[in-house]
């Protein structure tokens, strides 16, 4: 590929010849790649860390868990496994990772720990433990713990014989260190080994295990053993499954998707920029390219040449993007850590380099460059050799814009029909509308220019007309630039509308949740999996307080239905309605809660109903720790804690029977009549001292905090809109700069015939402003359509959200659009004004 070498050389020289333009265009790629890379080295790492903490990655040959992750009695499973051929040794384990209370930990910086209860004798037949100091556990040890040697790094005070308190379901317990294991492991989540009974007591699950570890006989076929084990145990169990799915996982994955989508959108805008630049390049080099055709370059060679050039920018942009992405990731972790923790406590944010992240970012960056370069490159290939001989002729655009205007309008009409249809179709409609706007933009430039120029004349009496006709000369380029801004501003409006709608939703739901006086929450209110709750002792002690009239609790289990994960919350139908309620969309408070006490019944959230297509009275076959059970749906409702998730409410009795769970993860209590808030709170807090994993809130305050945190999380939405607006600003800067480069000679003439620096500056500023107004006008239209579509889609998810016209968002979009335009215009305007007249006149 000797040609390719030459083309690369030429491309490099061309790019070098127009450094400023190259830099601006490359920035577009840099930005998208950086965003995608940053996202993909942080979030998947978080997910992986999270999954790892849940899955049973141990030294055993094979692990068996309940399909719901629930605990079970060893007698029911261990003997069956023991008898399977190829199994050499078996041991039962109770293990769990949980978040430590934010204050007062003896374990230094560890935010969560994994606690594993073992039977030392059988365990040592399954896997080998290396003890670096002290001794291993003895069967009759009580309160003894083996900690990882690495813990010295975070808690240097811990040595053999030292003791430390740790939370448990039944209050604080104290453990004595007897040995250090040589096992490596995460220091943010150290693994502690204890005797099984200790852990069973700590978790409030006496006589239960949740994992069976197996050592295989030498030469045994793992696959065959696995099959045999499953055959023996039935489908309630899984081998080496871990707990891949869990609520936080789903939530993080959703945000990963959304953020990646933003990255792709940023790259899409980048592609716009590159497309724009290369279209200009092809027009500029029409004669060169024609000459190359004349001296025998084939269409393919010309196309390749332009592609090589855009690919080169892609390569440079991608490399810089990776670097910037790394920096962005660090900044993101630093900036978002607070918001993140309040929702997904225990999910550690960190940078995890992976080949996948690099490859996907590189592939997307290069692909974008190639794709954006492709159409101009193809156009370049179509340049006739005769173009080398003709004087450059202005390209006629009228027909093209008219046809694209028609296409755009047809698309927009279609989109409006889709928007009105509502549901998921509406989301499609929003996207189609945006595409339609992009298509129609070149055709809209002329009429819009005419529409807005009187406005412009107010500020720029003399320069306005010139600026307008300058834009009209290249309606395609102006349209693409305005489209870029349009997308950015539309996203801004969409975000504003969504924040508005979600805020409304949160407020409505919060009213339901917070009927109680006191709210007792675990460290994370979204991810119960990582929470160590309390056993019945806490509820009993609270109820015993004279200040407390009613106590209700939430219990948690996870389940599945037809392959979809479901969160299951256990409530006491008798007490729960006294302290809280749900927002029902089917069924009613009285009937549904009453029905929950009778047989296997469930109330589902709107999201669960919509994703699983459930209705009142439906019977579902729910996966439980003890096999599938049939539940009947007696209501559809949700509250602020559950509206984001597919959740089932069942009675605590059913949860104990079917999921072996009796642990309370969240409690609510009402004070006895006449008890002051302060006195009641003080009383509750005396009890809670033993359960530092919980935080006690007076509901009134907590409600506000919760609403605030939720709203704070929405800041992310605005952040994303900002990230999309930045490339839009770059696009504007790019177009203005290219416009000026192209018109250098003209500007020289304007200056030569007596235009002042200030006038030239004002022409460019007016141009920028006009582009900004175009973008804002288009963006408002697109934004309204998009927000209507997306919020319409909320109802399809089971959330009844009214569409509130995002007035503030629209105003913000217009202001931001104009500001971005003015800001992007500063540099080009200045450089235009400062052009040396003589040089400008000689410019080619």
């Amino acid at each position: 590929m000797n040609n390719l070498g030459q083309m690369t050389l030429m491309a490099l020289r061309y790019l070098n010849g127009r450094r400023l333009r190259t830099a601006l265009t490359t920035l577009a790629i840099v930005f998208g790649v950086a965003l995608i890379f940053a996202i993909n080295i942080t979030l998947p790492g978080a997910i992986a860390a999270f999954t790892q903490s849940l899955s049973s990655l141990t030294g055993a040959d094979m692990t068996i868990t309940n399909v719901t992750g629930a605990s079970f009695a060893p007698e029911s499973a261990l003997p069956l496994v023991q008898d399977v051929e190829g199994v050499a040794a078996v041991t039962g384990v109770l293990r769990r990772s949980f978040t430590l209370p934010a204050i007062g930990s003896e374990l230094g910086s560890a935010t969560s720990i994994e606690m594993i209860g073992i039977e030392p004798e059988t365990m040592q037949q399954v896997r080998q433990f290396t003890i670096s100091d002290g001794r291993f556990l003895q069967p009759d040890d009580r309160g003894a713990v083996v900690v990882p040697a690495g813990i010295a790094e975070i808690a240097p005070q811990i040595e053999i014989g030292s003791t430390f308190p740790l939370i448990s379901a039944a209050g604080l317990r104290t453990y004595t260190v007897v040995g250090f294991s040589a096992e490596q492991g995460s220091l943010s989540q150290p693994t502690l080994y204890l005797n099984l009974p200790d852990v069973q007591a700590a978790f409030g699950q006496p006589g239960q295990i949740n994992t069976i570890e197996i050592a295989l006989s030498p030469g045994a076929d793992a696959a065959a053993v696995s099959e045999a084990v499953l055959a023996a145990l039935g489908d309630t169990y899984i081998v080496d499954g871990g707990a891949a799915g869990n609520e936080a996982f789903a939530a993080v994955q959703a945000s990963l998707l959304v953020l990646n989508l933003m990255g792709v959108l940023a790259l899409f805008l980048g592609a716009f920029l590159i497309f724009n630049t290369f279209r200009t390049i092809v027009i500029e080099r029409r004669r060169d390219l024609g000459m190359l055709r004349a001296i025998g370059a084939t269409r393919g060679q010309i196309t390749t040449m332009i592609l090589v050039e855009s690919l080169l920018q892609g390569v440079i942009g991608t490399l810089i993007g990776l670097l910037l992405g790394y920096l962005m990731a660090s900044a993101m972790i630093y900036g978002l850590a607070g918001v993140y923790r309040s929702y997904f406590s225990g999910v550690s944010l960190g940078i995890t380099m992976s080949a996948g992240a690099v490859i996907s970012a590189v592939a997307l960056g290069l692909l974008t460059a190639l794709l954006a370069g492709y159409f101009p490159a193809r156009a370049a290939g179509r340049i006739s050799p005769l173009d080398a001989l003709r004087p450059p002729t202005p390209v006629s655009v009228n027909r093209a814009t008219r046809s694209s205007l028609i296409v755009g309008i047809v698309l927009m009409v279609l989109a409006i029909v889709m928007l009105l249809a509502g549901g998921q179709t509406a989301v499609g409609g929003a996207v189609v509308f945006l595409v339609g706007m992009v298509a129609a933009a070149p055709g809209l430039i002329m009429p819009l220019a005419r529409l807005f120029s009187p406005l412009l004349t107010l500020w720029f009496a003399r320069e306005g007309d010139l600026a307008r006709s300058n834009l009209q000369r290249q309606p395609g380029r102006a349209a693409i630039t305005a489209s870029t801004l349009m997308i950015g501003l539309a996203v801004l409006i969409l975000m504003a509308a969504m924040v508005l709608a979600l805020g409304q939703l949160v407020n409505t739901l919060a009213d339901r949740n917070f009927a109680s006086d006191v709210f007792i929450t675990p460290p994370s209110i979204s991810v119960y999996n990582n929470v160590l709750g309390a056993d019945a002792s806490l509820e009993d002690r609270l109820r015993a307080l004279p200040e407390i009239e009613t106590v209700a609790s939430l219990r948690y289990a996870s389940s599945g239905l037809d392959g979809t994960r479901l969160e299951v919350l256990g409530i006491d139908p008798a007490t729960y309605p006294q302290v809280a309620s749900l927002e029902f969309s089917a069924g009613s408070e009285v009937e549904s809660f009453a029905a929950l006490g009778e047989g296997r019944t469930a109330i589902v959230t709107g999201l669960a109903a919509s994703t699983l297509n459930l209705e009142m009275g439906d019977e579902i076959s729910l996966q439980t720790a003890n096999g599938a059970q049939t539940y009947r749906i007696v209501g559809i409702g949700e509250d602020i804690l559950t509206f984001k998730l597919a959740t089932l409410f069942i009675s605590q009795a059913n949860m104990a029977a079917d999921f072996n769970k009796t642990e309370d993860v969240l409690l609510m209590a009402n004070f006895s009549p006449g008890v002051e808030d302060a006195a009641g709170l003080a009383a509750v807090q005396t009890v809670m001292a033993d359960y530092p994993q919980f935080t006690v809130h007076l509901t009134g305050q907590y409600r506000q905090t919760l609403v605030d945190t939720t709203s704070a999380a929405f800041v992310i939405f605005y952040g994303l809109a900002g990230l999309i607006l930045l490339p839009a600003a770059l696009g504007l800067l790019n177009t203005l700069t290219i416009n000026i480069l192209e018109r250098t000679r003209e500007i020289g003439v304007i200056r030569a015939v007596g235009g002042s620096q200030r006038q030239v500056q004002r022409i460019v500023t007016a141009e920028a402003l006009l582009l900004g107004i175009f973008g804002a006008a288009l963006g408002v239209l697109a934004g309204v359509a998009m927000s209507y579509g997306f919020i319409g889609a909320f109802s399809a998810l089971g959330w009844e959200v009214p569409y509130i016209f995002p007035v503030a968002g629209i105003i913000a979009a217009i202001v931001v659009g104009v500001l971005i335009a003015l800001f992007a215009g500063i540099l080009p305007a200045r450089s235009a004004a400062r052009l040396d007249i003589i040089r400008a006149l000689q410019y080619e």
Partner: protein
Amino acid sequence: MFILKTESLTKKYGSESQPIYALRDLNMSVEAGEFVAIMGPSGSGKSTALYLMGGLDRPTSGHVWLRDKDITTMNDDALSKVRRESIGFVFQFFNLIPVLTAVENVAMPLILDGVPRPQALERAEAALKQVDLANRASHRPSELSGGQQQRAAIARALAAKPAIILADEPTGNLDSRSSDEVVAVLRRTVDDFGQTLVLVTHDPRVAAHADRIVFIKDGNIVDENRLKGADRAEQIREKLGRVAMSEG
């Protein structure tokens, strides 16, 4: 033996009802080693003829034979190959790639044809020598004078050792002195290397270098002038040099 021959070459623009003929039934042939100048007023179709001969454009009807091949029936890639290997173009506006040095520009058609870069550059150097520009090989076009740029463009046309060179107003953008240099270089390729050359010009001084001048008007040949060789040189000398004297 002809190198290039046109057969009822016709190029028509405009609608079927009101056709405008840029070229109408043009028949001409160019012999090996011949230097032909095509002249005619603007709009006569002389440039169109050249473009069609070079396969830059496609005729409405008729044929162009390059040796034994009809280039009017070729597809674009085959035509590109012919342009690369058998035809050298020289344009009015030089059309050098601004970011490449003179020698790289000259090597361009060879590189496009797949000649390895070192060989291509070597041959390009040789071509530059042929046009007396060896000492400017590593200059960018912007560092060359108009005449030098055009000579580099001629070297580019020569580099692939084409069967024929087609030049479109090669001196149209040059002052008379540079123009003389450029035509002299073209003439030399014919005299010294037996190059076949067709040149379109409106400049009599340029056309005077040719072996044959073809006059085109309204899309067809109106006259043709075979210029006799240098054997009459002494005659001129005699005529020009005899100065009649009178007294006082």
